[in-house]
């Protein structure tokens, strides 16, 4: 083998796929009355990455939990937010994983979010979640880039999004996609 073995990796996987690598796994559409949680369960481990694409006519802090792990100290959250003027504030919170857009914007101004988790099925890595989301209500609103950490080397097999003191309103829709690797 070349002397530079292990120095750099060069297109070694041979994954010359012929089918689409982007697949829909499951969707939750919220009906009348709303719901306080969105659950994706039995997530297959056969993809490399997950993407959640969400739309909700009402915004509120959304908590995110994986595999039923409710141990708060296993989570961490960081963010930056644009609020329509001035600088972008940045912050963090321990013991939580948020999808951060807050509520109070009215049911007509929909939240849009795209959340990406790379190597979600890894059994050697903690899980870093990247989120891009926002809501604009014609004179108010927020635009976030945020990240979360789930400190577990377990493969993600379930995801629960939940709101406290608020619901995901009717017509909310959250779709889970898998991206092959």
């Amino acid at each position, binding site marked *: 083998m070349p002397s*530079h073995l*292990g*120095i*750099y*990796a*060069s*297109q*070694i*996987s*041979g*994954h*010359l*796929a*012929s*089918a*689409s*690598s*982007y697949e829909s796994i499951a969707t939750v559409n919220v009906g009348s009355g709303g719901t306080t949680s969105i659950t994706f369960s039995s997530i297959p481990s056969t993809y*490399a*990455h997950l993407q959640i694409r969400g739309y909700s006519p009402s915004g509120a802090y959304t908590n995110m939990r994986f595999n039923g792990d409710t141990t708060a100290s296993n989570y*961490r959250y*960081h*963010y*930056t937010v644009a609020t329509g003027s001035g*600088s*972008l*504030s*940045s*912050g*963090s919170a*321990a013991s939580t994983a948020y999808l951060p857009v807050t509520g109070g914007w009215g049911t007509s101004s929909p939240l849009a979010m795209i959340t*990406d*988790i*790379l*190597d979600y099925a*890894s059994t*050697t*890595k*903690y899980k*870093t*979640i*990247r989120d*891009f989301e926002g809501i604009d209500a014609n004179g108010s609103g927020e635009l976030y*880039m*945020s*990240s*979360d*950490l789930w*400190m577990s*080397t377990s493969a993600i097999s379930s995801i629960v999004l939940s709101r406290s003191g608020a619901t995901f309103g009717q017509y909310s829709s959250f779709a889970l996609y898998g*991206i*092959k*690797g």
Partner: protein
Amino acid sequence: MADTFTLIASSTAGAGGVTAFDFTSIPSTYTDLVLKWSVRQDLSAVAASDFIYINGSQTSYIGRWIEASGAGSATSYGYSGNFTYANPEGNGANSTANAFSNAEIYIPSYAGSYYKSFASINAMENNAATAYVSLGANLWSNGSAINRVTISTSATSVTGGAQKFLQYSTAYLYGVSNA
């Protein structure tokens, strides 16, 4: 239904790590490229930059990015020179153990004749107040079709230098087709 979003190649660092992920001989048959990578470096720091090189070139890069560190206000940085700061703050060895960054670039029209603009979005997590999210706009001022993309640990060497991406670091190259 046409296959639009297709894995071209992927790579995982084995024991001992690697100094770069080097995607070569990229076919020109797609429209856009998407590169996703989840890495951790052995640099003794909380954060370590990942550098991108196009076609092995070490000239004509310029970029702007927004970066937030978990406190205060986000700021914006710029660079120009011999590399792309595609993930300006990835995980270094002093970040929380087992945490790997979540990074992505999107390169439209990579085989066309325009200068190559590409967008980056990154998250580096750490169980502490300081961690980083960033959003970048990058430009390689060269009209050549892209046939090689390298993610490197070095600002001076395409194939990496003293630092390594640690075992379990991964990189994935996708093609998006508008055919």
